């Protein structure tokens, strides 16, 4: 197995773990954590492709990761603020109990 | 301006810091075990027993009256009377304590024992370094450890000791005078008894009693 394939496999495994967490856990914070894990798996892919790709000198994948980290920071901040607001509203952070907008 | 006060404070602490190496006044700590501040005259911790003269057994003022034992609020004094008697400073025969223990871990230095003692036998000490590694034996002070000479008392509480000594000297003198008077009276009595018959004595007593009664009735109460 080449290093690139190894990286991609690790990344896909991490993605699946994040996905499983986001789907199964009921606490909103952990759902967010699962999403962060998936985002990180994607970042690992970018780094791997940058590192083993044909043109590392253009820094494309690298820059994508930098920007992605910045976006993730913003996402986490807003997401957790949302969870806090919802918690204050509904007194729970369990996503399966927040059913007020259900049709 | 913002930050001015901080600089003033920093200057002050820096003055303290560097000043402490040149000015002795900036270090007010007394290095206790080596240096000691003199204790004030009035300082008093834990009682001790006084004795006169050289021999702690012979000169011990305590007569084992057990007033202090009864008055002691935390009950830290334990006294056992002796079977025999010995003469006190005025020559009267008194019992003396066979056992006199003070548990200094219980004593609260309240000084009540000193105040109730009619014989000036117990006084407050100035010792305070009584901590020890054995809490069962070494904190129970026996008669031997408690007995201290009058000179020691004069040293630690000079004013009080002088007052006590003066009083005791007067008492001793009075007692001596009384003894002399008693002796003289006894002698005179003996001489009188030899002169007069016993019947006259009895009648004299009988005449005196009604007179005394009338006297008390007549008083303004």
């Amino acid at each position, binding site marked *: 197995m080449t290093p690139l394939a190894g990286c991609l496999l690790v990344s896909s495994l991490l993605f699946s773990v994040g996905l*499983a967490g986001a789907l199964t856990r009921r606490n909103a914070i952990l759902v967010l954590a699962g999403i962060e894990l998936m985002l990180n798996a994607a970042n690992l892919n970018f780094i791997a492709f940058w590192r083993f790709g044909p043109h590392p000198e253009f820094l494309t994948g690298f820059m994508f990761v930098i920007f992605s980290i910045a976006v993730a*920071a913003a996402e986490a901040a807003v997401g957790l603020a949302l969870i806090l607001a919802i918690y204050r509203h509904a007194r729970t952070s369990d996503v399966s109990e927040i059913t007020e907008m259900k049709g | 301006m913002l930050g001015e006060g901080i600089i003033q404070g920093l200057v002050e602490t820096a003055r303290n810091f560097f000043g402490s190496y040149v000015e002795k006044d900036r270090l007010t700590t007394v290095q206790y075990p080596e240096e000691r501040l003199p204790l004030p005259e009035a300082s008093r911790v834990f009682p001790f027993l006084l004795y006169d003269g050289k021999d702690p057994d012979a000169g011990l003022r305590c007569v084992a009256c057990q007033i202090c034992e009864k008055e002691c609020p935390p009950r830290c004094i334990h006294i056992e009377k002796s079977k025999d008697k010995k003469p006190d400073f005025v020559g009267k025969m008194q019992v003396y304590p066979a056992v006199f223990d003070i548990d200094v871990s219980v004593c609260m230095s309240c000084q009540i024992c000193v105040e109730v003692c009619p014989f000036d036998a117990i006084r407050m000490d100035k010792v305070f370094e009584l901590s020890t590694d054995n809490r069962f034996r070494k904190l129970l002070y026996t008669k031997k450890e408690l007995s201290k000479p009058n000179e020691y008392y004069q040293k630690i509480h000079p004013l009080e000791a002088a007052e006590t000594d003066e009083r005791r000297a007067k008492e001793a003198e009075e007692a001596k005078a009384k003894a002399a008077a008693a002796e003289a009276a006894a002698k005179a009595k003996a001489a009188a008894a030899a002169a007069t018959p016993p019947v006259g004595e009895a009648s004299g007593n009988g005449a005196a009693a009604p007179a005394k009664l009338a006297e008390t009735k007549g008083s303004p109460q």
Partner: protein
Amino acid sequence: MGMTVSFLILAILTLAGGVAAMTLRRLVHCALALAVSFAGLAALYVNLGAEFAGLAQLLVYVGAIAILIVFAILLTHSSETELQKVFSPAGIAGALLALAVFAVLAWAVVSSGAAHSAASVAAPQTSMREIGFALMQRYVLPLEVIALMLTAAMIGAVILAVRPTSGSEPAETQAPRNPELRA
């Protein structure tokens, strides 16, 4: 050829952290495991030659996001409640779905030619100077957009998370719903 030992160790650490973060019962443990996973990923980036990205990952994820998550857990009192069983029917279904996704992804990785053709490239020499120039020249527009977005996100997060002071309008509208909140 193949993967180096350090890569393997870091990958296992990262995955273990991720799995622990998604399966542990106590939420604070989950957050700590998540931090381990993030740190492992940062080390992986450094291992792959992306020093700057790895350190940025450490600074942002471990230093900020993990802390944010921890704060959120404490502020929502989630650390005290016992959670659902991990092996509930929904849990098994989700896990199976994730497994399926992984199978597809792994199949794609293993069978694609691209993963094998790019065998071993010498580690690209990227100095901080180059990264800086790239950020300031080629990627200056994304950089500015990101800056704007971060500012917007910060303001948004503050507005969302700030507790409405009693007397202001949001508190008035919320009051009948949960009166104990104002106490």
